[in-house]
């Protein structure tokens, strides 16, 4: 069979590619030993990997419609699995996840379970049926299943909202990684990364994106494993971190129990408590306290002579001083929260939520992340690209397996990092601080200060940012710089692959769903591809432009995207497949209410103090998801059933080929 030789050829190509990549890493490693400066190694990784992705993009360039939109529908299950995994795992998964676990302990597991468990929903409820449907986009499905333009238009709006916030976050991630490792300004890093993204998607659409994502998956998984295997070997003598971190968990529990009673720790915590109180008083005295603080700084600056070395410090403080009383309130509230958190003894790392409301929030967040995963358009779209329904089912399994490899390892990263901090940092003199702490303190990822002035590092004196855990592990494990460069290349691969998938989803929503299907249906296939490519360019530039502002809200918006996708697409897709009686009125009402209610609670609870049952903003979908299902079911039962053609359409996607009268595939 011709398909077999295609799969064999792919296997051979990617095996050679993996070998070449490892050889590249080893050569750079030898180079480092011979004295190659670390800046060159960083450049070699960045430009080397981007050049490979670009080459794949150029080789897979296409102007054909089916190739451009669904990679010719011949991506074998295992490769679609890898591409989906790379599409799925963003900079946040690669760099942020282990850090969140480090900081939050058990509570962080909502992300681990949520972002994997969603694939079970996807695999049994949606993916095989979407493949049987066999068109190009999610709005395509909404229109054919429910009839009329309205469901399509709501689908387009929801797809653009969810994908664009997510895209901006990825572009920001690219900028941070390139600027941190190459020392380039953030904005230049963004546009450099953008070039890497565009060269793939622009030339070859889904086809180029798919084959590049497979290559990116290989880079990111290799980069993720090496440091954690090394640190597991360092701590336990066994290089299997996923099994060995149980020991680290025990160390953490013992050390933290000791810290609770340690008099020096208690002393530091008392100082934090006092600090929190002071900030609280300042917040209460706003806006007078803001004016006074500003005046004090200005007077201090005026009193210093122009040559005074302290001047720079005061100038910096003045520059960073809140511009308005409102900004002061936000900044100081955050500072107060941090001081309060630091004033409490560390809670047990494996301790589960104690108060019922905390457990409810944990479960609600897990649920929103799971359902959102199964409702994100850029992931759903990938299941159109397999050759058969059967391969779509298998491919969901492969996708989760490849994602699982990373998520299964993240808790080990977090536990080893925490036990390293507790064992080898706490209790040391400030004078003997390890090199990795000094390096990352320089970029602000670790803040460490001798609060009680005893010259010894206390646990309550260390503030660690989430990103540090993965980035610093190579140095903690004593690995050469080449591994740190590899980790940066892995983070870049994770951000680029997700950005590519999102970019193509947004551009398709506009070019295919809006322009071709609604505004001008008389376009030739080649014009459709050209318009898609032009839009890709425009959307990418807007994404980069928005990212260049570095808005703090972007990280939050990504978490919101899950609740939005969960409350809009998921119920409508599931009901469209599993409930034959569902009609247009029900679906439209459900989507509008689901999306509206979720947005209402998000904005209300984030900005206006709205509070229903103590649910946090991040789990807003917990109201919208059931509301969508409920409203859709009620409205559909009160209105006439869908016409016969649509009921036949449902049969056609439910049953395998040959079971019922076959539907046409474009």
């Amino acid at each position, binding site marked *: 069979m011709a398909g077999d030789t295609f799969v064999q050829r792919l296997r051979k190509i990617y095996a050679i590619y993996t070998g070449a990549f490892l050889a590249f890493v080893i050569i750079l490693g030898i180079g480092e030993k011979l004295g190659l400066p670390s800046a060159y190694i960083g450049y070699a990784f960045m430009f080397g990997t981007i050049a490979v992705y670009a080459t794949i993009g150029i080789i897979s360039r296409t102007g054909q419609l089916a190739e451009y939109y669904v990679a010719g529908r011949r991506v074998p299950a295992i490769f679609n699995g890898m591409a989906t995994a790379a599409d799925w795992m963003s900079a946040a998964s690669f760099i942020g996840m282990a850090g969140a676990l480090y900081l939050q302990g058990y509570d962080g597991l909502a992300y*681990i379970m949520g972002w994997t468990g969603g694939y079970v*929903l996807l695999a049994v409820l949606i993916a095989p049926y979407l493949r049987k449907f066999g068109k190009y986009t999610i709005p395509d499905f909404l229109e054919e299943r429910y009839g009329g333009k309205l469901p399509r238009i709501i689908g387009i709006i929801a797809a653009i909202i969810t994908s664009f916030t997510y895209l901006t976050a990825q572009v920001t991630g690219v900028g941070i990684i390139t600027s941190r490792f190459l020392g380039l300004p953030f904005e230049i890093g963004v546009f450099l990364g953008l070039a890497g993204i565009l060269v793939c998607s622009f030339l070859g659409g889904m086809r180029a994106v798919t084959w590049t994502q497979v290559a990116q998956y290989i880079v990111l998984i290799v980069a993720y494993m090496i440091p954690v295997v090394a640190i597991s070997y360092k701590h336990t003598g066994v290089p299997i971190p996923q099994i060995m971190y*149980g020991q*680290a968990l025990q160390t953490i529990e013992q050390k933290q129990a000791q810290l609770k009673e340690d008099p020096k720790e208690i002393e530091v915590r008392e100082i934090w408590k006092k600090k929190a109180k002071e900030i609280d008083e300042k917040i209460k005295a706003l806006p007078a306290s803001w004016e006074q603080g500003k005046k004090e700084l200005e007077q201090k600056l005026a009193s210093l002579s122009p040559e005074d070395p302290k001047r720079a410090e005061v100038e910096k403080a003045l520059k960073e001083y809140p511009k308005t009383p409102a900004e002061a309130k936000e900044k100081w509230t955050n500072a107060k929260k941090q001081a309060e958190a630091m004033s409490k003894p560390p809670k047990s790392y494996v301790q589960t939520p104690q108060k019922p409301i905390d457990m409810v929030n944990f479960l609600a967040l897990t649920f929103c992340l799971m359902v959102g995963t199964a409702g994100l358009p850029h992931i759903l779209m990938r299941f159109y690209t397999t050759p058969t329904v059967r391969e779509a089912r298998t491919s969901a399994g492969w996708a989760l397996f490849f994602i699982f490899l990373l998520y299964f390892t993240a808790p080990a990263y977090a536990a080893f990092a925490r036990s390293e901090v507790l064992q080898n940092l706490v209790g040391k003199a400030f004078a003997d601080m390890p090199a990795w702490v000094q390096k990352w303190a320089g970029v602000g990822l670790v803040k460490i200060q001798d609060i009680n002035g005893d010259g010894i590092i206390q646990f309550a004196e260390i503030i660690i940012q989430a990103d540090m855990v993965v980035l610093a592990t190579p140095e903690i494990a004593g690995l050469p710089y080449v591994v740190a460069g590899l980790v940066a290349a892995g983070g870049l691969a994770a951000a680029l692959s997700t950005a590519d998938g999102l970019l193509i989803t947004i551009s398709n929503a506009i070019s295919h769903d809006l322009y071709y299907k609604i505004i001008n249906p008389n376009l030739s296939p080649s014009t459709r591809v050209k318009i898609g490519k032009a839009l890709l360019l425009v959307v990418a530039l807007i994404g980069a432009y928005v990212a260049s502002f570095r808005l703090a809200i972007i990280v939050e918006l990504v978490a919101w995207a899950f609740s939005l996708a969960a409350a809009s697409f998921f119920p409508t897709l599931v009901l469209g497949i599993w409930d034959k009686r569902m009609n247009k009125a029900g679906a439209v009402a459900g989507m509008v209410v689901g999306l509206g209610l979720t947005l209402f609670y998000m904005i209300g609870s984030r900005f206006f103090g709205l509070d229903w049952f103590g649910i946090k903003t991040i789990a807003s979908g917990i109201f919208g998801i059931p509301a969508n299902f409920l409203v859709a079911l009620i409205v559909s039962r009160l209105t006439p059933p869908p016409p016969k053609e649509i009921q036949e359409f449902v049969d056609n996607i439910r049953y*395998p080929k040959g079971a019922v009268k076959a539907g046409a595939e474009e």
Partner: protein
Amino acid sequence: MLSKEQLESYWRENRNLMILVLLIWALVSYGAALISGLLNKIVIFGFPLGYYMGSQGSLVVFVLLIIFYAVSMDNTDEKYGVKED
């Protein structure tokens, strides 16, 4: 083409499989999280069981569930003579 009865029983089998898979899915994630405080009292190889279920145990089950689903559906397709090649 399958008869109407065959189609109905095919869909019923599919639906029952879906319910079974989602039941296990909910038990290992939400069920285990609800009693995670109790499970944490059991410690295996240094892992408190409640923490382990959230960090790795449920993930393993998720992967196995999708494989189980894909294989079962293949068998069903074959039984009804509609397996894709």
